[in-house]
């Protein structure tokens, strides 16, 4: 198993090794030690590799991940798994702002809390947060699922499109055009699937409330101007 010690090896070496994998390569499990808050660790993965990061990372860890399975054994800075296409990213600790921003696929699991704007502009990614999320989360969320076992901050789902939000705890306030919606059997099914994928067995999907778009801002109407 290749081990990259970021206290002695340049980040470039790690990322180019991850990108340059020949088809059918044997070494597909990478370990990163001493990440020391480096930015852009394990970005642009485009093969089914496994990356175990032993420590905390800075901005944009696993950015644009397409097929990799990345675990951060620590906390992650802003924009973790931004624009993820597929694969999975697991954060054992907390995640800073914009976790999973604009993600188009794959699964992001945050075992601690996530700060503000978690899932901003999400476009298909699934995000499961064991703890709480900050304000303006899922702002302009287009599609995908955001599952929060704890509480959500202010203005959840502001200007939401078709992303589906599930919160088990309290929601401080809902953003413009975001409303509580009925939790139907298909949502319970999807929730069970996501909870299982995120390794959560002691929580029932029925404990969640669902939030989605009221779809009132979908086509401009001057009578809705106050909401803009």
């Amino acid at each position, binding site marked *: 198993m290749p081990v990259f010690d970021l206290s002695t090896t340049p980040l470039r070496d790690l990322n180019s090794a991850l990108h340059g994998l020949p088809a059918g390569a044997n070494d597909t499990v990478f370990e990163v030690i001493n990440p020391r808050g480096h930015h852009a660790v394990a970005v642009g993965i485009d093969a089914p590799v496994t990356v175990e990061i032993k420590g905390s990372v800075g901005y944009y860890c696993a950015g644009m991940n397409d097929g990799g399975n990345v675990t951060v054994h620590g906390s992650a800075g802003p924009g973790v798994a931004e624009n993820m296409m597929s694969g999975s990213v697991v954060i054992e600790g907390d995640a800073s702002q914009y976790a999973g921003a604009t993600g*188009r696929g794959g699964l992001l699991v945050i075992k601690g809390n996530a700060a503000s704007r978690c899932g901003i502009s999400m476009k298909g990614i699934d995000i499961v947060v064991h703890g709480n999320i900050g304000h303006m989360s899922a702002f302009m969320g287009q599609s995908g699922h955001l599952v929060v076992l704890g509480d959500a901050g202010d203005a959840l789902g502001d200007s939401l499109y*078709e992303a589906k939000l599930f919160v088990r705890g309290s929601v401080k306030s809902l953003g413009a055009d975001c409303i509580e919606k009925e939790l139907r059997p298909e949502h319970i099914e999807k929730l069970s699937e996501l909870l299982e994928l995120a390794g959560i067995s002691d929580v029932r999907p029925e404990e969640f409330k669902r939030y989605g778009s009221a779809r009132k801002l979908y086509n401009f109407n001057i009578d809705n101007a106050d909401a803009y």
Partner: protein
Amino acid sequence: MSYHNPPTPPRKSATFDDQTLAEIRRAAATGIYDIRGGGTKRKVPHFDDLLFLGASISRYPLEGYREKCDTTVVLGSRFAKKPITLKTPITIAGMSFGALSGNAKEALGRGATLAGTSTTTGDGGMTDEERGHSQMLVYQYLPSRYGMNPKDLRRADAIEIVIGQGAKPGGGGMLLGQKISDRVANMRNLPKGIDQRSACRHPDWTGPDDLEIKIMELREITDWEKPIYVKVGGARPYYDTALAVKAGADVVVLDGMQGGTAATQDVFIENVGMPTLACIRPAVQALQDLGMHRKVQLIISGGIRSGADVAKALALGADAVAIGTAALVAIGDNDPRWEEEYQKLGTTAGAYDDWHEGKDPAGITTQDPELAARLDPVTAGRRLANYLKVMTLEAQTIARACGKNHLHNLEPEDLCALTMEAAAMAQVPLAGTSWYPGKGGF
């Protein structure tokens, strides 16, 4: 009529002119601000207010058609492993698929390729047509991140991080439901037929320090191969240029207020941002202060129409220019041949700007398959290539007359200004004097 009571002709107010009155009535009737395409329509100081001096006893000219006047430009030489080389310093600006039809995007790619220059994607992502027909394609990285994906990032020749546009510095975008076809909706991961708003700020960074990390991330993802441009609207060109350089940009794209847009509020287009002419010198100054002039390239856009405009922008210190509106006109936008149809839409050729409605008779700013089919991408591409070649020849003609063997050797010293405003903005002397406002502390 009598001697004691002579008639006076009716007098209209300069403040409340016909256009203003009509806009007040329109707002009162509809309750919605006016949205339109294009750039500012008001007259602002521009390249027309500058002239070249030409050669004289102290400056000898180069022979047209005989002596070489080079036009090549290399973009991205600062950090990118694969900088791009253009045969002409005139590039095609970013215009989205969604705002423009697939055929129009293809035509832009074809024309740019024939002329040896680059074209640019836009808000909405990269289409196969434009990638396939563009030898050099710049991929825009916008706040909306519509269609953004690492595969397209890797098949791009350069990446342009869009922070602002001259038509609307500080504004986001809006593609109205009428133009959201299945394909456009699919590329943007949104339902068909709804208004698609593009955010005004990037979702995962704010400020110059974050930008530096974002640029580093994009470089890591693409293995430091691609030139990274940063595009800003003409607001604070000195500081924006300096900050873009500090953040690690290879190229700064600076778009003045004449720059076109696909759809923005008229109040925004007409009242926010600085004229292109006023943006260039401060940006060049920032590059010079940092020792980065010519190392980080400067692309200027917003109202570029002719080889003279190109030569003037370059003389003021730009490395290249980008064109949007003029490229659309070259491929057939606002062409009088569709006058009858423009009339039906309540407008006239040359004034049609309701591009967001998707009813473009020329088939360019539309997603309607029937209208779009009116534009033949091969012929339109040829027209664009012709136009680009004419502009390049024009710029060379001027450069030779000024004795320059490369367009980049044009300099402010070759220019004079016709008005005080232009003299002040371009920092070149008022014609017939050796002075411009601000020079020598006056």
